């Protein structure tokens, strides 16, 4: 194991392009993803989306809305596990940045998520389907919020697999927010109510905010920030 200095010395050699690293990482990251958990979550979420059909011959719009929202929530809960990395201690000091690694994970999940959402929407009979564009906004906001929460957990804790706690917290917030948020915000109204429009402005804000949190939690700081100066 004598180090043949010069031969494999990397300093001085132009570092390889990020694109090449990402391309080569695709396969191992795909394998490192909690695929079975995501698949199981997606399956249960589809079952939830199918509940209106299964429970009633003539499902109503209200049950379709509830089912679609719950399906989106369920899938978002599964996404909380996407950033779990049992080898985190080991990978914390590699040159490939964390934001690249996490973004790659999300990018690999995204086509699957899109296909899943299409299936979920199609499971709702077209007659009672809530506006697809607005519902997609809600689902996207929930999904990105869950990912942002997971990213924040990685950023602020040393936990390698924060998914479980993030999912629990996310679910608790999701259950309380319809009760706690003012009805005027319109985030949990039905399409027939007049707050639907303003509610989706709020959903868009949630989405933008979640993306911002995600981006803010991406970089690994070179300096520790202290809340309380000591």
């Amino acid at each position, binding site marked *: 194991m004598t180090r043949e200095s010069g031969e494999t010395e990397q300093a001085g050699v132009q570092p390889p392009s990020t694109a090449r690293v990402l391309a080569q990482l695709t396969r191992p990251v795909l394998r490192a993803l*909690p695929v079975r*958990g995501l698949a*199981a*979550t997606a399956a*249960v*979420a589809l*079952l*939830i989306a199918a*509940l*209106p059909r299964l*429970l*009633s011959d003539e*499902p*109503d719009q*209200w*049950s379709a809305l*509830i*089912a679609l929202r*719950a399906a989106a*929530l*369920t899938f978002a*809960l*599964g996404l909380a*596990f996407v950033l779990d990395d049992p080898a985190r201690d080991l990978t914390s000091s590699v040159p490939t940045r964390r934001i690249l690694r996490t973004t790659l994970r999300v990018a690999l999940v995204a086509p699957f998520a899109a296909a899943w959402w299409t299936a979920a929407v199609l499971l709702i009979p077209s007659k009672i389907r809530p506006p697809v564009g607005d519902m997609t906004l809600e689902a996207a906001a929930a999904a990105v919020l869950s990912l942002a929460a997971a990213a924040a957990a990685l950023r602020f804790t040393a936990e390698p*697999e924060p*998914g*479980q706690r993030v*999912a*629990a*917290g*996310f*679910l*608790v917030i999701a*259950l*309380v927010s319809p*009760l*706690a948020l003012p009805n005027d915000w319109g985030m949990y109204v039905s399409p027939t109510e007049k707050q639907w429009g303003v509610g989706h402005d709020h959903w868009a804000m949630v989405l933008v905010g979640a993306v911002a949190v995600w981006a803010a939690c991406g970089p690994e700081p070179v300096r520790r920030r202290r809340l309380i100066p000591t």
Partner: protein
Amino acid sequence: MSTVLTEAPAETSTAPAREPWSAIFALARFESRKLLLRIPVLFMLAAYVAWIVWRTKSGWYGYPALQDVDRATQTGPLLVGFAVLLCVNQAVLRSQRHDTERLFGVLVLEPWRRTAAHALSILPVTGLVVLGVAAQFGWQAVKSTAVGHGSVGELLVGPLCVLLCGAIGLLMARLVPKPFAIPVAAVLLLVFSVLAPASIGGGSATAWLTPIVGEGSTKTIPSELIGRPAVSHSLYLTGLALTLALLAVLISKGRTKTSTAVLAGSLAGAIALGVVGGVGQAAGVSSETVAARTVATLNPQKVQSCVRHGRSTYCAFPEWVPRTATWAEVTDHVQSLAGGTAQTRKLLVQQRVEARYGMEGDGAIEPSTTPNQVTVRTMWGGPRTPEFSAAVASVLVLGNEKAGGDVCDGRMVTIMWLALGWTSDPVTELRAVRLSDTVTGSSIVLSPTNGMTMTAGQTSVVRELLAAGPSTVTPKVKAHWAELTAPKVTTAKVAQLLGVKAPGGADKCE
């Protein structure tokens, strides 16, 4: 001296005696402390307390009927239940997650006893929910305005739901020991329990299989007519929660033959309990209750008690007799504004309810045609008070309740003045009593039976009268009582008699 010396070691040798059950209890104490300190549980307990305060402040306008308050305690504990579902599951899976299972797997306390301890650890948080339910119910029950009776069966549903949630979390941890399973299962359960009753329809035996059974109606009926199998349902929930928890213990490893036998026996007992409850709640409403509902709806006087307050008689279902004095105050206030014989007329205030469909559906109550009889319903406070006041006023002006539905002339102004003139904030009451929640334009005025119609012109006259106040208006009302209450008197004429600006246009009711 020597006795002391010989006794001392004997004491120390008995102290560390190992009892299989005490270890379970010790672990259960430890786990319950951990559970109570988990952030989701603390957060949801706080949310539950906030929910209790919000529900209690906003509900029943200060005049609660306890047979409604008991059911209103049921949904809030679900908040805590969901946190317990998640956290119990995560607590069971903790050793697997932190890879301590290899160590714990060989300790004296076998997996089944650890599962049993986790099951017991749900009890303290359930105890907190019992306190929450007691506080929520007690807060309304101590009010002097409260009527009726709560049901222990209904009150137990909330805490039992917390137990059930914990048992589901426990069983899930043993069946699918994966971290992602429980949040997903929680959403599935929640959606199913929300959607299933709506699809199945309330009141059927299948609907009672869900933990919390809501009702299609928000009205209040006498407690003995509700006919909800509350006690059976709480037995069913207890049996269900115990069955799931015991199943979780039973599928955990490390059981001895004796413990398996004991657990299997308990499981059989729990299933039996659940079945007894399930059969009981599926039985439907008893024929006695159905008969009593019919009597209460069609011949209420047979079951009511009548009380005299001043000139008038008040007949109410026994649970509401204490409230008759409150009704009498309103009647007296309205009569004090009236003129002629109306001031001293003897009224019969009769409480009526549509109870034939139980809590599943509402039904309108036909107005009474009997002269001087006023209908009062089971709810009170908020808009219900001016609604009753309007009914009293209409009977004083028109002679009977039925006539209120047809009145379209200036007498409507007098009716509304009598109904609202005595109140401290009449414009707010006017808004409350009108279906459209407005104080301008035309609208239906609600009353305990059929509504009455107010035109835009009448509304503006009434508002001017309310602005002028009783000291100016009452003498004029008493002086012109006969003209004001004459059939077909126009609104313009009434305005002129009472000294306010007359509206343009004739009286026209849509």
